[in-house]
């Protein structure tokens, strides 16, 4: 929605910098020390609350199957075992599920970037008949909740004979009005002058998109690409409705199935969950500057 409208995505550390009041005055004396201590405590508590469940998951992956929920409770394992991680990585179903989901997520991300950025460019920079009608048509789809179309989408993909193929995961969600909107806002802020110069040089609209807008799209592609990848990687409901053959099981589907079929293997379940969370964590940490910077609210105020 209007939340993410980066003009120029500022570095993560820059949010909060511009309007900070001059400090120093308040940091002296006993009161200053108390305030500082309070801040450190509050900050530490927030970090702890946010990361504790994940830390526990990673550590539980090193426990034996009975130790995960042993009484009395122990946070750290008696002996650090790597067997769970080794075993889950040796499980061909797990490895296949990770690979299939990864491949699907890449395809989905590329398709999403392509169709949405083409549409975004057309709406941002081209004039054509029925532009407003088409704009309203596209944007309206942003306000339709998933559940309202989940059931009939299932009917549609059944009729199109897409069930139980990778296409049913990749194609239906690729076009997104929210992503298109986000990219259009970005393209609207590209200076006209560049385009005018290129037009004088005889560049076509396609040439302008290809040689001016695409190369400039990196920051917005990172945000949209990451969001698409994450949405694909984390999706669970759509795969359990449309994928039945184990060869195509998505990673979230695999974890949920593992949990019900091998309920006793808690250590392995936690190891598998850790590994399944790893790719998106790495992606996020690599691109965190762009992603967190992308959360600007220019459209909101």
């Amino acid at each position, binding site marked *: 929605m*209007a*939340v993410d409208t980066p003009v120029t995505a500022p570095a*993560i*550390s820059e*949010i*909060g910098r*511009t*309007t900070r*009041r001059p400090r120093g005055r308040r940091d002296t004396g006993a009161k200053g020390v108390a305030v500082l201590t309070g*801040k450190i405590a*509050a*900050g530490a508590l*927030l*970090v702890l609350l*946010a*990361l504790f*469940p*994940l830390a*526990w998951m990673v550590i*539980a992956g090193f426990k034996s199957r009975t130790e*995960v*929920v042993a009484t*009395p*409770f122990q*946070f750290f394992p008696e002996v650090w075992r790597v067997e769970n991680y080794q075993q889950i990585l040796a499980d061909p179903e797990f490895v296949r599920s990770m690979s299939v989901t990864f491949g699907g997520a890449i395809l989905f991300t590329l398709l999403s970037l392509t*169709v949405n950025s083409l*549409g975004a460019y*057309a709406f941002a920079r*081209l*004039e*054509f008949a029925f532009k407003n009608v*088409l704009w309203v048509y596209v944007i309206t789809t942003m306000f*339709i*909740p998933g559940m*309202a179309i*989940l*059931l*009939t*989408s299932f*009917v*549609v993909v059944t009729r199109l004979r897409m069930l139980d193929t990778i296409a049913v995961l990749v194609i*239906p*969600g690729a076009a997104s009005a929210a992503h298109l909107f986000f990219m259009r806002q970005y393209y609207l802020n590209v200076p006209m002058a560049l385009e005018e110069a290129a037009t004088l040089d005889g560049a*076509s*609209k*396609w040439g302008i998109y290809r040689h001016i807008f695409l190369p400039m799209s990196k920051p917005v592609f990172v945000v949209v690409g990451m969001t698409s990848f994450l949405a694909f*990687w*984390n999706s*669970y409901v759509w795969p359990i409705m449309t994928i039945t053959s184990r060869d195509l099981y998505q990673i*979230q589907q695999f*974890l949920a199935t593992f*949990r019900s079929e091998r309920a006793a293997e808690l250590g392995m379940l*936690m190891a598998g*969950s850790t590994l399944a969370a790893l790719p998106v964590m790495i992606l*996020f940490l690599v691109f*965190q500057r762009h992603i*967190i910077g992308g*959360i600007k609210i220019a459209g*909101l*105020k």
Partner: protein
Amino acid sequence: MTQTVQAEPTTLGTAAARRRGRPSGKQPRARTGMNARSNKMAYLMLAPVVILLTIFVVWPVVYAVYLSFYNWSFYTDPIPVGWRNYMNVLGDRTFIESVGRGLLFAVMVVPVQLVIAFLFASLVRTVSGRVATLLKVSIYIPTIVSGVIASIIFVLIYNYQGGILNAFVGLFGVEKQAWLGNVATALPALAVPAIWLGLGICSLIMLAGMVDIPATYYEAADLDGANWFQKTFFVTIPLMKNIFLFLLITGFTAAVQQFELPLVMTDGGPLERTLLPNLYIFQHFRNDTYVGYSIAAAILLMVVLGSISAVIFRVLNSEKAVDG
């Protein structure tokens, strides 16, 4: 069309141009040519996104509205039943209760999220760059975690035997609880992972809104000798009204529609205490081959939530004047 309009002011044009009904030679024709080409290129570029949205979003909506007036299963011809599906939904206590439960769930999730996010933002804007980065990255990390993994983690945290939560409350002499099995604690137990998953985005939007407030307002308040509470309640909060409203409504609609957590953690139990509306619709769809009822329920929910979204959108668009 264009030609007839432009044919009027031809006095300055050449004779040839006048004969063709054009004001001045080549330019307009060039422009028309451009438009035609521009049209074609625009439609080519829009085609993929418009076609995909039509097949996978617009058509399913139209089809859903159509089917909601029919009695239909995969293997039979649809039989028109008028408003009966809707009547059945409105007369179904389980559905109405699930919507009420969804609202209750939102009341558990959203205010806590807003308060933590506000405190987070207040803290982050006063610390130095590197610490701020650490805090922002930390709070955002749970957002990356999937609903399934969050469910797996929290089910074990709530585990009766050897779960962390029971060990923790045991320190205060509280009896062990079956947090997800007890009718009184199941829904709040589901609210915690929902808060955890949604907190990151809420906090960062809150922060982005807070840093937009001009520093001069605080300087003026400082000159008047305002303390932290006065500055928070008389400067920060009033100026962030739109942000609060936005987060309130988006958080509210997301919470009412929460679906994966109850699906994986409790499957609606115990005694339907975690049966949120979308889970109820989904279960109904899976168990009943006649889908008209499920679709009517989904559409009714969409209308309620859609009205709320429309209200925010209008409010946000009409109150731009609040900022300094």
